[in-house]
């Protein structure tokens, strides 16, 4: 079965701290994986995507994600969080449609 799991519903970090958001997937072939961010009242914005090749993917706003096939994971990271990063983050598995995780809501403390 195809699925995406984001184990953390809420995460709170202090501004300037590092961040890691977890994403695990289940898929029988090479996955196409995406991370999107949704700010309050806004649509979904693509942060980064993994199709093949390098397992460390760089995205916008200083985010990166690492694909680990052995762990079926695609975790999102940022070395230093800014207050403007507070939002909801969705991991998605791309077939011809997206299968989304349930999202992780990030709160940033000043």
């Amino acid at each position, binding site marked *: 079965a195809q699925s995406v799991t984001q184990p953390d519903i809420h995460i709170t970090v202090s501004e300037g701290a590092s961040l890691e958001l977890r994403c695990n997937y289940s898929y029988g072939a090479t996955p*196409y994986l*995406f991370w*999107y961010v949704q700010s309050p009242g*806004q*649509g*979904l*914005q*693509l942060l980064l*995507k993994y*199709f093949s090749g390098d397992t460390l993917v760089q995205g916008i706003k200083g985010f990166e994600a690492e694909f680990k096939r052995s762990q079926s994971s695609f975790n999102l990271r940022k070395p230093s969080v800014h207050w403007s990063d507070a939002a909801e983050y*969705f991991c998605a598995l*791309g*077939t*011809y*449609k*997206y*299968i*989304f*995780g*349930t*999202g992780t809501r990030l709160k940033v403390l000043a």
Partner: protein
Amino acid sequence: GAGVSQSPSNKVTEKGKDVELRCDPISGHTALYWYRQSLGQGLEFLIYFQGNSAPDKSGLPSDRFSAERTGGSVSTLTIQRTQQEDSAVYLCASSPSLAGGLGNEQFFGPGTRLTVL
């Protein structure tokens, strides 16, 4: 260029009324998707169009929901006899994918917030 647009941005309706939600995809994008985002349910796939045909309608929750796409462009999602559980944000996305393309990046519109009283 212009992104995906959706109208209306907000819709409040009474239980039992029909509603139509519109999506204008990015010009030239052959694939179009509808998703629903509701509390406790996350983001759910509803329907996928490739051109004007819908090879996957598996996510439509009931026969009260239907969608069409005309001219390979604009799409309308219709909900008949709305129920309170239909309250959600309805998101449209488009993609420049070829038929059957895997992993194509989807570009999302801002959504229509539907409230059924």
